[in-house]
């Protein structure tokens, strides 16, 4: 009687075993890890970069880097968290590079006197749509995307990791290469800026909903 070979997926039940097999030279074990975690990494990358194309590139690069650095991965750690952190690190580098390229191309350098990233909230164009029109949820989403894109890369990373990724402050500090108190402050600053940019529209929408007039 012919014995059925278990598939790689069923034989590699845990990430730790998949990592062990990959390190022993089994590339198919790494495929299992990629297939298991790529959606989660994609969601992070999309929220970081704000577009699908960049998000997909971040996902690929994160797994390539994870494969290259796999021998440094601590066996007791969580592979999902680890690759997520690699993606966050790569996203922030990529956003900084893009921002720098954009400012070199079209605008004079945007730095404050102390050399830190400039607050781009002050560059919101005039002539924004009226609150009435923004009460429409589609426009609110557009406005939210715009507000997120105007955070600095560090602020956006901190916000996404904290509020959507549920990351701890130490993990965020690690991605930002900063102290934990600086990371906490970056999370706070991101929320503060988003409030400043969006609260009038969010409140207006809440009022419209309460009055039954939301569009």
């Amino acid at each position: 009687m012919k014995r059925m070979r278990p598939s790689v997926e069923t034989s590699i039940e845990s990430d730790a075993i998949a990592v062990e097999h990959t390190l022993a030279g089994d590339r198919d074990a790494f495929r299992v890890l990629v297939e298991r975690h790529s959606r989660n990494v994609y969601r992070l990358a999309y929220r970081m970069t704000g577009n699908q194309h960049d998000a997909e590139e971040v996902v690929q690069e994160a797994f390539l880097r994870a494969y290259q650095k796999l021998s440094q991965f601590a066996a007791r750690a969580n592979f999902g968290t680890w690759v997520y952190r690699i993606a966050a690190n790569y996203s922030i580098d990529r956003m900084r590079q893009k921002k720098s390229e954009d400012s070199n191309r079209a605008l004079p350098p945007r730095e404050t006197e102390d050399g830190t990233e400039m607050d781009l909230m002050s560059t919101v164009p005039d002539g924004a749509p009226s609150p009435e029109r923004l009460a429409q949820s589609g426009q609110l989403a557009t406005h939210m995307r715009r507000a997120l894109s105007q955070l600095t890369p560090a602020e956006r990373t901190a916000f996404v990791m904290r509020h959507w990724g549920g990351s701890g402050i130490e993990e965020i500090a690690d991605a930002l290469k900063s102290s934990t108190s600086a990371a906490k402050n970056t999370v706070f600053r991101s929320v503060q800026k988003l409030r400043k940019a969006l609260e009038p529209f969010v409140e207006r929408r809440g009022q419209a909903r309460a009055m039954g007039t939301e569009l």
Partner: protein
Amino acid sequence: MKHPKEEELIAYQDGEATGRETIATHLGDCPECQAELARIDALLAALNTIPVPEPGEGYGQRVWQQISPRLPQRRSHWWDFTLP
């Protein structure tokens, strides 16, 4: 207690604030701060509604197809062969 600063309320909402009990007690008695906290909650709830486009069926397989030709060969060590 004085009204907590914005930073403290954001941290409280986030579950990170030190002195949570003091802030919670203050919130119980202060409609102004309750409204402020509700505004922070509403903002974060609204941000949660931004959709993330689905990457489609078989996304993980697609990622693997894209990266597998770029993966470097992993060198096996002699001790790999001694493992059971």
